[in-house]
């Protein structure tokens, strides 16, 4: 069994030392506004109901609904307003805007932040890193243990297809509500956790519906600087309760600027490319006629990775129209003692944000000496080797294409061909609606 020791991030004020007593237990019916039966019946939380867009590919909608720099859309205002309220109520462990941050000079513009307070006050804990799928454990910290004041709002699909907002909605536990809660150790302003169907206590495991929910959240925020991320177990997720993270950073992430090479277009027009000239090898999925198309393809890829026990990270960018998928092996290397000591000393855990180019540094020395070369060196350790990446790609493409209907075997062969050979093949079919187009 492979394990690493690391200081877990405190995401909630109700999260105590894993090894110590869980204080939540000692409260009974408790008057503390928790999410347990004792308090939840009476509870009210804002509810934002989003519109299920069936078609988002059109020019109009792309511009007007999603990515145009329009005046702060509603979800943006709601999230920022609620978050600032929690700032002023003193729920965070530190003021993240008081943490120094800078763009590291260089071609890519890696972003460094000095955050000396994020990891204090916790003992290192052992994490098993060789199993991407692990069952939910009721007795460990999970998000049903946070206090109501840490929850910002409920985020649901609208019943009648229109955006709706209820400032004080009851919590319908039977209807599996999705919660958006603060992360009390924020990496940047607006750092929240999206917890799909919180009361179902799902383990950290990707599924199509949850990914779609995350894409919807990105689309509804309508702000390209609001991105969501996901870390699988073994890729620096510390809490085995299904969740995405998100925050605001009004800068392009280096990964978003990296050139790509197109590999294929799948059903629904989802374009798949691979990253070039970036320290971490990864795939980029973008476009598609609907968010469903994108979420279905990407979740197929994720499910393939987790079923094959390959840890990965996901970044959702461009208002939910672009997803980066990065298989990684850093924790495994770390557990096997293959990571060089200098890198380990920085205690940087390369999760989705670090991989995307936002480096949160714990030591002043590392911050002062931050350079593109240093960032690159760390991320290069995270990446799969070229050979392994191509193997993993082949698995992913097989998973995606076997999930697609009406694909003939010739097409599948082509897919294998492209992932295993350098000269690309070309597939063209008469009924292009259902075709995998390769180049």
């Amino acid at each position, binding site marked *: 069994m492979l394990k690493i020791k690391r200081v877990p991030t405190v995401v909630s004020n109700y999260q105590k030392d894993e090894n110590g007593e869980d204080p939540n237990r000692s409260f009974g019916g408790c008057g503390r506004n928790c999410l347990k039966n004792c308090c939840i019946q009476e509870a009210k939380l804002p509810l934002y109901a989003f519109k299920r867009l069936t078609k988002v590919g059109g020019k109009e909608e792309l511009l007007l609904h999603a990515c145009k720099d329009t*005046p*702060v859309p509603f979800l943006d205002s709601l999230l*920022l307003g*609620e978050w600032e309220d929690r700032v*002023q109520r003193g729920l965070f462990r530190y003021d993240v805007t008081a943490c120094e*941050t800078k763009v*590291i000079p260089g071609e890519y513009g890696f972003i460094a932040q000095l955050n000396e307070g994020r990891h204090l006050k916790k003992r290192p804990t052992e994490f098993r890193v060789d199993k991407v799928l692990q069952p939910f454990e009721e007795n460990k910290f999970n998000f049903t243990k946070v206090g109501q004041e840490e929850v910002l709002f409920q985020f649901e699909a609208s019943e009648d297809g229109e955006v709706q907002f209820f400032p004080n909605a009851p919590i319908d536990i039977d209807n599996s509500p999705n919660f958006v809660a603060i992360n009390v150790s924020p990496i940047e302003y607006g750092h929240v956790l999206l917890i799909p169907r919180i009361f179902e206590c799902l383990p950290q495991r990707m599924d199509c519906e949850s990914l779609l929910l995350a894409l919807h959240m990105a689309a509804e925020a309508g702000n390209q600087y609001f991105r969501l991320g996901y870390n699988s177990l073994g890729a620096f997720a510390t809490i085995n309760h299904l969740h995405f993270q998100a925050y605001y950073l009004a*800068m392009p992430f280096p990964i978003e600027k990296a050139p790509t090479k197109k590999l294929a277009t799948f059903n629904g027009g989802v374009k798949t490319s691979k990253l070039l000239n970036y320290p971490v090898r990864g795939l980029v999925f973008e476009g598609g006629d609907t968010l469903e198309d994108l979420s279905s393809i990407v979740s197929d890829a994720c499910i393939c990775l987790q079923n094959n026990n390959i840890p990965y990270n996901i970044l959702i960018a461009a208002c939910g129209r*672009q997803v980066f998928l990065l298989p990684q092996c850093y924790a495994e290397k770390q557990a096997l003692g293959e990571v060089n000591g200098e890198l380990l000393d920085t205690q940087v855990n390369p999760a989705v944000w670090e991989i995307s180019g936002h480096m949160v540094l714990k030591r002043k020395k590392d911050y002062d000496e931050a350079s593109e070369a240093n960032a690159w060196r760390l991320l290069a350790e995270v990446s799969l080797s070229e050979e392994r990446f191509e193997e993993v790609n082949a698995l992913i493409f097989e998973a995606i294409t076997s999930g697609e209907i009406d694909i003939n075997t010739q097409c599948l062969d082509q897919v294998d061909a492209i992932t295993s050979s350098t000269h690309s*093949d070309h597939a063209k079919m008469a009924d292009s609606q259902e075709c995998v187009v390769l180049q």
Partner: protein
Amino acid sequence: MELGSCVKENSFNDHYSVYAREALDELPHNFTITDPSIPGHPIIFASLGFLNMTGYTRKEVVGNSGAMFQGPGTCRRAVMEIREAIREERKTQVVLLNYRKDGTPFWMLFHMSPVFTEHYGGVVHFVAVQVPLQKKMDYCEDGSRLQQDYVFGYCRKEVCLDSVLGLGRLCPMDQHDDVRDLESEEPCEASDDEKRSAVTAMDNIFSVLTHYSESTGRLVCRKRCSMPDVGLLSTSLIISLGRIKQSFVLTNPHLFDMPIVYASDAFLKLTGYASNEVLGCNCRFLGGKNTDTSTLYLIRESIKTEQPCTVRILNYRKDKSSFWNILHISPVRDASGKVAYFVGVQIEEDHKNGDRPGLSPERRQLSVVGVVKVAVRSLSMTAGSSKS
């Protein structure tokens, strides 16, 4: 709307005079001029050539953001580069896929340059020259590339045609693993000729702009000709703040007497002042004879201790009429982690229900604080960037 179009005309005329329009119209180039200080960073001038190229009328274009020409096939990275250039107040040149009014896409070389004022060293406008690259390649509806016969030996025009006619066929990408595939979204390089023609166009436009700016006494130049004034907000921050519809001001505690350095349109509307009447002034001009001094004390305390506060204060408009202002004040830190500004968000009491049903006025105040904090923090990070 009327007021809006007036602002856009003034933005042009005040700097270059009305006569500059005629001179610019005589230029054969395709270009637009935008003003980052107006909310939405709208186009304030579009050349005849540009209108011909895109199929829009001047009325349809002026007042809109350049994003109106982008579509599903527009390369995200190219747009990102333009945004970064605006943020860093530098020129840039990218190949971009834009869309005409009839929805057809076209590739062009986008060459943008900031226009600096000689007075305070800031950016007043951006000029964007667009050189169409239609000669080399044809493109499908979705922006994917079709090769010309002479390049790859066979033609797939009929496939493209189907696509344009809406038969729903995907456009096959070519199978050649050539260098240009590395940038499938940015497939064609502009030729040296086209690059030169963009630069020439920019030269010609700037010679008109600088010439006519002499006549208005508000000299502009192509390179930053003086150090920006202390306390001057960056273009990108102004653009970001311009998106916020609520009434708020930003004050700078590091300048003498803590003057207003930004006032939103809604603030100007609420108080009846013009922007140049409030910028540089301390907020105390909003007070009057019945303004409670103990409230002013609370405000001063909150500023001194760098803590947020909400007060109810009697304020006066320019026309001397008074209103109860629910004022929320919060410190705003920049990327260094230090307090760089204070934001003051105003809500007129009994006038609380705005255009956003559902979100309480207090929450909307806090969301303004959130948006401002994100913008100030992120947009002050670029100082160390090596690109220039």
